[in-house]
Protein backbone atom coordinates (compact mmCIF):
# COMPACT_ATOMS: atom_id res chain seq x y z
CA UNK A 1 0.00 0.00 0.00
CA UNK A 2 1.40 3.37 -1.00
CA UNK A 3 1.46 5.99 1.71
CA UNK A 4 0.45 9.42 0.47
CA UNK A 5 1.21 11.33 3.59
CA UNK A 6 1.67 10.92 7.30
CA UNK A 7 1.73 13.00 10.46
CA UNK A 8 2.75 12.53 14.06
CA UNK A 9 1.47 14.39 17.04
CA UNK A 10 2.26 14.00 20.72
CA UNK A 11 0.10 15.63 23.37
CA UNK A 12 -0.19 15.55 27.14
CA UNK A 13 -3.04 13.43 28.44
CA UNK A 14 -5.06 16.49 29.41
CA UNK A 15 -8.73 16.51 28.52
CA UNK A 16 -8.45 19.93 26.91
CA UNK A 17 -6.41 18.23 24.15
CA UNK A 18 -9.28 15.97 23.07
CA UNK A 19 -10.74 18.59 20.75
CA UNK A 20 -7.29 19.61 19.50
CA UNK A 21 -6.42 16.07 18.39
CA UNK A 22 -9.80 15.69 16.65
CA UNK A 23 -9.33 18.92 14.74
CA UNK A 24 -5.68 18.24 13.84
CA UNK A 25 -6.27 14.74 12.48
CA UNK A 26 -9.48 15.61 10.68
CA UNK A 27 -7.81 18.61 9.02
CA UNK A 28 -4.98 16.30 7.92
CA UNK A 29 -7.38 13.65 6.58
CA UNK A 30 -9.28 16.32 4.64
CA UNK A 31 -6.65 15.88 1.88
CA UNK A 32 -8.50 12.74 0.82
CA UNK A 33 -11.60 14.84 0.14
CA UNK A 34 -13.85 12.94 2.53
CA UNK A 35 -17.53 13.64 3.08
CA UNK A 36 -18.62 15.47 6.22
CA UNK A 37 -19.97 12.16 7.50
CA UNK A 38 -16.66 10.37 6.98
CA UNK A 39 -14.75 13.12 8.78
CA UNK A 40 -17.25 13.02 11.64
CA UNK A 41 -16.79 9.24 11.90
CA UNK A 42 -13.03 9.67 12.27
CA UNK A 43 -13.44 12.47 14.81
CA UNK A 44 -15.85 10.45 16.92
CA UNK A 45 -13.74 7.28 16.95
CA UNK A 46 -10.54 9.21 17.63
CA UNK A 47 -12.18 11.11 20.46
CA UNK A 48 -13.02 7.80 22.13
CA UNK A 49 -9.47 6.51 21.81
CA UNK A 50 -7.90 9.70 23.16
CA UNK A 51 -10.40 9.89 26.02
CA UNK A 52 -9.51 6.31 26.95
CA UNK A 53 -5.85 7.34 27.27
CA UNK A 54 -6.77 10.24 29.54
CA UNK A 55 -9.31 8.43 31.71
CA UNK A 56 -7.86 4.92 31.80
CA UNK A 57 -4.21 4.80 30.70
CA UNK A 58 -3.06 7.66 32.92
CA UNK A 59 -5.74 7.83 35.63
CA UNK A 60 -3.71 9.67 38.28
CA UNK A 61 -0.99 11.32 36.25
CA UNK A 62 -0.34 13.19 33.02
CA UNK A 63 1.43 11.12 30.39
CA UNK A 64 2.02 11.40 26.66
CA UNK A 65 -0.42 10.36 23.96
CA UNK A 66 1.22 9.62 20.60
CA UNK A 67 -0.89 9.96 17.48
CA UNK A 68 0.31 8.68 14.11
CA UNK A 69 -1.98 9.24 11.15
CA UNK A 70 -1.35 7.83 7.67
CA UNK A 71 -3.20 8.44 4.43
CA UNK A 72 -2.98 5.85 1.66
CA UNK A 73 -3.49 6.14 -2.06
CA UNK A 74 -6.45 3.79 -1.81
CA UNK A 75 -8.28 6.35 0.32
CA UNK A 76 -7.59 4.52 3.57
CA UNK A 77 -6.99 6.54 6.72
CA UNK A 78 -5.13 4.77 9.50
CA UNK A 79 -4.72 6.42 12.90
CA UNK A 80 -2.65 4.88 15.66
CA UNK A 81 -3.13 6.10 19.22
CA UNK A 82 -0.44 4.95 21.60
CA UNK A 83 0.10 5.49 25.31
CA UNK A 84 2.65 4.27 27.84
CA UNK A 85 0.06 4.01 30.57
CA UNK A 86 -1.27 1.21 32.72
CA UNK A 87 -2.41 -1.11 29.93
CA UNK A 88 -5.62 -3.12 29.72
CA UNK A 89 -5.61 -6.40 31.69
CA UNK A 90 -8.44 -7.90 29.63
CA UNK A 91 -8.89 -6.41 26.16
CA UNK A 92 -11.82 -8.65 25.25
CA UNK A 93 -13.77 -7.49 28.28
CA UNK A 94 -12.82 -3.84 27.72
CA UNK A 95 -14.23 -4.02 24.18
CA UNK A 96 -17.62 -5.26 25.38
CA UNK A 97 -20.33 -2.61 25.07
CA UNK A 98 -21.43 -1.04 28.37
CA UNK A 99 -18.53 -2.55 30.30
CA UNK A 100 -16.50 0.09 32.11
CA UNK A 101 -13.69 -0.31 34.61
CA UNK A 102 -14.55 3.03 36.17
CA UNK A 103 -17.96 3.99 37.45
CA UNK A 104 -19.45 7.43 37.35
CA UNK A 105 -20.41 8.91 34.04
CA UNK A 106 -18.43 6.73 31.65
CA UNK A 107 -20.93 4.86 29.50
CA UNK A 108 -18.59 1.98 28.68
CA UNK A 109 -19.12 2.56 24.98
CA UNK A 110 -15.72 3.76 23.80
CA UNK A 111 -14.72 0.69 21.83
CA UNK A 112 -18.30 0.06 20.65
CA UNK A 113 -18.35 3.56 19.17
CA UNK A 114 -14.92 3.11 17.54
CA UNK A 115 -16.12 -0.14 15.98
CA UNK A 116 -19.36 1.42 14.84
CA UNK A 117 -17.69 4.38 13.11
CA UNK A 118 -14.56 2.71 11.68
CA UNK A 119 -13.96 -0.19 9.33
CA UNK A 120 -11.34 -1.78 11.54
CA UNK A 121 -10.26 -1.38 15.17
CA UNK A 122 -7.19 -3.17 16.53
CA UNK A 123 -6.16 -3.09 20.18
CA UNK A 124 -2.80 -4.24 21.46
CA UNK A 125 -2.12 -3.80 25.13
CA UNK A 126 0.47 -4.92 27.63
CA UNK A 127 -0.56 -4.66 31.24
CA UNK A 128 1.65 -2.09 32.94
CA UNK A 129 3.26 -1.00 29.68
CA UNK A 130 0.65 0.72 27.57
CA UNK A 131 -1.85 0.36 24.77
CA UNK A 132 -1.87 0.80 21.01
CA UNK A 133 -5.20 1.34 19.29
CA UNK A 134 -5.28 1.32 15.49
CA UNK A 135 -8.30 2.76 13.70
CA UNK A 136 -8.87 2.33 9.97
CA UNK A 137 -11.44 4.08 7.86
CA UNK A 138 -11.86 3.78 4.11
CA UNK A 139 -12.72 7.14 2.58
CA UNK A 140 -15.02 6.91 -0.42
CA UNK A 141 -14.92 10.66 -0.81
CA UNK A 142 -17.27 13.23 -2.13
CA UNK A 143 -16.99 11.95 -5.70
CA UNK A 144 -18.78 8.78 -4.66
CA UNK A 145 -21.34 10.32 -2.35
CA UNK A 146 -24.21 11.76 -4.33
Amino acid sequence: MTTLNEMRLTVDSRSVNESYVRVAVSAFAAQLDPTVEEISDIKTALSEAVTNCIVHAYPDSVGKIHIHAQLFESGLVRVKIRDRGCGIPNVKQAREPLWSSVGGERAGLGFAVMESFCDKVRVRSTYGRGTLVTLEKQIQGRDYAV
Partner: protein
Amino acid sequence: MPPDIIVTPISVTALLCGEIDHHSAAGMRKAIDDALRKSKPSLLRLDFARVTFIDSSAIGLVMGRYRLARELGSRVQIVNLNERFHRLMRLAGLEKLAQLTLKEQRLNA
Protein backbone atom coordinates in the same frame (compact mmCIF):
# COMPACT_ATOMS: atom_id res chain seq x y z
CA MET B 1 -19.56 25.80 27.45
CA PRO B 2 -22.22 25.56 30.18
CA PRO B 3 -25.70 25.28 28.67
CA ASP B 4 -28.35 27.99 28.82
CA ILE B 5 -31.08 26.70 31.06
CA ILE B 6 -34.74 27.64 30.76
CA VAL B 7 -36.92 26.93 33.78
CA THR B 8 -40.73 26.93 33.78
CA PRO B 9 -42.99 25.79 36.65
CA ILE B 10 -43.12 22.30 35.15
CA SER B 11 -39.92 21.89 33.15
CA VAL B 12 -36.20 22.46 32.91
CA THR B 13 -34.74 22.77 29.42
CA ALA B 14 -30.98 22.68 28.94
CA LEU B 15 -29.88 24.19 25.62
CA LEU B 16 -26.62 22.32 25.10
CA CYS B 17 -24.07 24.03 22.92
CA GLY B 18 -20.88 23.25 20.98
CA GLU B 19 -18.90 20.04 21.33
CA ILE B 20 -19.73 17.47 23.99
CA ASP B 21 -16.73 15.36 24.91
CA HIS B 22 -15.20 14.12 28.15
CA HIS B 23 -13.62 17.54 28.68
CA SER B 24 -16.68 19.71 28.15
CA ALA B 25 -19.27 17.37 29.68
CA ALA B 26 -18.15 18.12 33.24
CA GLY B 27 -19.26 21.76 33.17
CA MET B 28 -22.55 20.91 31.49
CA ARG B 29 -23.30 18.23 34.06
CA LYS B 30 -23.02 20.59 37.01
CA ALA B 31 -25.21 23.31 35.49
CA ILE B 32 -28.01 20.86 34.66
CA ASP B 33 -27.87 19.07 38.02
CA ASP B 34 -28.02 22.34 39.94
CA ALA B 35 -31.13 23.40 38.01
CA LEU B 36 -32.74 19.96 38.42
CA ARG B 37 -32.16 19.82 42.16
CA LYS B 38 -33.40 23.36 42.63
CA SER B 39 -36.65 23.10 40.70
CA LYS B 40 -37.49 19.35 40.71
CA PRO B 41 -39.47 19.69 37.46
CA SER B 42 -41.82 17.06 36.06
CA LEU B 43 -39.92 17.27 32.75
CA LEU B 44 -36.23 17.57 31.91
CA ARG B 45 -35.57 18.43 28.27
CA LEU B 46 -32.05 18.17 26.84
CA ASP B 47 -31.92 20.17 23.62
CA PHE B 48 -29.15 19.26 21.14
CA ALA B 49 -30.03 21.85 18.46
CA ARG B 50 -26.81 23.84 18.97
CA VAL B 51 -24.52 20.86 19.53
CA THR B 52 -21.89 20.33 16.85
CA PHE B 53 -20.13 17.15 18.03
CA ILE B 54 -20.70 14.32 20.49
CA ASP B 55 -18.85 11.18 21.51
CA SER B 56 -19.80 8.62 24.14
CA SER B 57 -19.26 11.22 26.87
CA ALA B 58 -22.59 12.72 25.77
CA ILE B 59 -24.19 9.31 26.35
CA GLY B 60 -22.73 9.32 29.86
CA LEU B 61 -24.03 12.84 30.34
CA VAL B 62 -27.56 11.81 29.32
CA MET B 63 -27.50 8.61 31.40
CA GLY B 64 -26.30 10.45 34.49
CA ARG B 65 -29.00 13.13 34.13
CA TYR B 66 -31.60 10.44 33.54
CA ARG B 67 -30.66 8.80 36.84
CA LEU B 68 -30.93 12.04 38.79
CA ALA B 69 -34.16 13.01 37.01
CA ARG B 70 -35.72 9.69 37.91
CA GLU B 71 -34.76 10.13 41.56
CA LEU B 72 -36.52 13.48 41.49
CA GLY B 73 -39.55 12.08 39.63
CA SER B 74 -38.86 13.89 36.33
CA ARG B 75 -39.42 12.54 32.83
CA VAL B 76 -36.63 13.06 30.29
CA GLN B 77 -36.91 14.21 26.68
CA ILE B 78 -33.93 14.48 24.34
CA VAL B 79 -34.78 16.77 21.46
CA ASN B 80 -33.35 18.19 18.24
CA LEU B 81 -30.97 15.31 17.57
CA ASN B 82 -29.42 15.05 14.14
CA GLU B 83 -29.21 11.63 12.44
CA ARG B 84 -25.71 11.05 13.73
CA PHE B 85 -26.43 11.88 17.38
CA HIS B 86 -29.58 9.74 17.15
CA ARG B 87 -27.53 6.79 15.88
CA LEU B 88 -25.06 7.12 18.77
CA MET B 89 -27.83 7.30 21.35
CA ARG B 90 -29.56 4.27 19.91
CA LEU B 91 -26.24 2.41 20.03
CA ALA B 92 -26.41 2.97 23.79
CA GLY B 93 -30.08 1.99 24.01
CA LEU B 94 -31.08 5.43 25.28
CA GLU B 95 -34.42 5.22 23.48
CA LYS B 96 -35.48 2.83 26.25
CA LEU B 97 -34.84 5.47 28.92
CA ALA B 98 -35.98 8.67 27.33
CA GLN B 99 -37.99 9.99 24.41
CA LEU B 100 -35.61 10.82 21.54
CA THR B 101 -36.74 13.36 18.96
CA LEU B 102 -34.94 14.24 15.75
CA LYS B 103 -34.36 17.77 14.56
CA GLU B 104 -37.06 19.06 12.24
CA GLN B 105 -35.73 20.11 8.86
CA ARG B 106 -36.97 22.74 6.49
CA LEU B 107 -37.80 21.29 3.10
CA ASN B 108 -37.14 24.56 1.31
CA ALA B 109 -33.86 25.29 3.06
